[in-house]
Each structure stands twice: as structure tokens, then as C-alpha cells.
């Protein structure tokens, strides 16, 4: 059971990180959000089929965590890029 939960967490991390790539610069955020939800749901169905219901929660949590971490990381990169650019222009 522990191994299956860890597998679900691993799959969730990868899937969440990949979902962070979707919808950057899109002009239809509602469409993107709906798609993200559908993508997580589809992957969750696969997880349930392979590993059982008990793994769904670890999968969903790790998926959300990885998605948020990816978003924060990209935002941090963008902020640092902007700060560097501004400091170069000020010189």
C-alpha cells in the first residue's frame, strides 16, 4: 500500500509539473482551467484503475503541489529576469 501511494505521488508530481506548461500566454483562461481539470480527472481515473481509490488523494495532492511549485518557479524566474533587465537599462 505504501509503495502504491508513493507511486501515485510520483505520478502526481510529474503530471502536475507537465500541466504547469499548459496555457501560458493564453487568451482563454476558462478554457485552460477546464482543460486542466479534465486532464487531472483523466489521469486520476487511470490511477484509480491501476492502483485503487486509496491512491487518488496522494496523487491529487502531489499533482496540485507540483503545479503550484512550477507556477511559482516560473514566476520567480520572470521576476528575476525583469529585475536584471531593469538594472541593465538603468546603467
Amino acid at each position, binding site marked *: 500500500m505504501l509503495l502504491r501511494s508513493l507511486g501515485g505521488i510520483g505520478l502526481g508530481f510529474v503530471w502536475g509539473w507537465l500541466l504547469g506548461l499548459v496555457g501560458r500566454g493564453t487568451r482563454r483562461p476558462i478554457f485552460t482551467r477546464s482543460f486542466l481539470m479534465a486532464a487531472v480527472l483523466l489521469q486520476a481515473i487511470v490511477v484509480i484503475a*491501476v492502483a485503487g481509490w486509496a491512491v487518488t488523494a496522494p496523487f491529487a495532492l502531489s499533482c496540485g503541489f507540483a503545479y503550484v511549485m512550477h507556477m511559482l518557479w516560473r514566476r520567480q524566474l520572470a521576476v528575476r529576469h525583469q529585475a536584471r533587465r531593469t538594472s541593465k537599462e538603468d546603467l
Partner: protein
Amino acid sequence: MTDSSQAATPIQLAGAGCFGLLLGWYLYMINRYRKTDVQISDLVTLLGVIGGGAVLGLFPARSDLFGAYGIGLAAGFFLYFVVLIILVRISPNFDADWFLDGRRTLPNGQIFVPQVGVPSSGGIAMEVKPDVEGGKH
């Protein structure tokens, strides 16, 4: 809750883990060399690869093999990412901006930004300020 997981031998677990590791590594590599933004069809394909018919077919339902596969997948995927961060950090031709738009310094010193467009030859030249460290122009 009863544990209905099927027992797997260590060699089976190692095999499933290595399979996931390989798949995760390739997954990041393919994603890295993607030409355009991620489309819906891309994710559907990925879903089929990492969690689709192959996984359902290879690993019996509720077996520990899925666990080993998932752990291997994440390990391969994020190992590639960590190696990439280390390589970008030690290379003089790349910096953190590469993760944003793929920009890099060409051998002739010009900065090439792939997402701006495919240049006719040798990249898009950006004006290099001659004395950036020397104060205002």
C-alpha cells in the same frame, strides 16, 4: 481497509522502477525539445504514454509494480531537470533565462532567442552594449 496488493519480487519492482526512470527521463527530454507551446493533443498523448494502455497492460491492477513505476517516473523526470539546472548553472553560454524563452549566447557572442522566430541564418542578433559595466551611455 484491507490491503489487496499483489506481491512482486524485488527484480520485478526494480524492472518497473527502471522502466519508469527511463520513461521519465525521456519525457522531460521530449518536452524540452518541443517546438511549440503545449497543446491539448500533447497532453492526451502524454496521458497515453505515462498512464495509458502500456501501464495498464504491464502492471496488474493493485500491484506494487505501479508504485515502483511511479517512483521511477518521478525520479527520471526530475533527475533530468536537476541535471539541466546544474549544466545551465556551470555553462557560460546559458543562464536562468534559458528556462523562460530558450535564449543562449552563440559562439560569436550574439544572444539567440528561439521563441522570437527562426532566423534566416545564425540567430537573431541583439545589440550588445559595449560598456554595460561602464555606466550610462
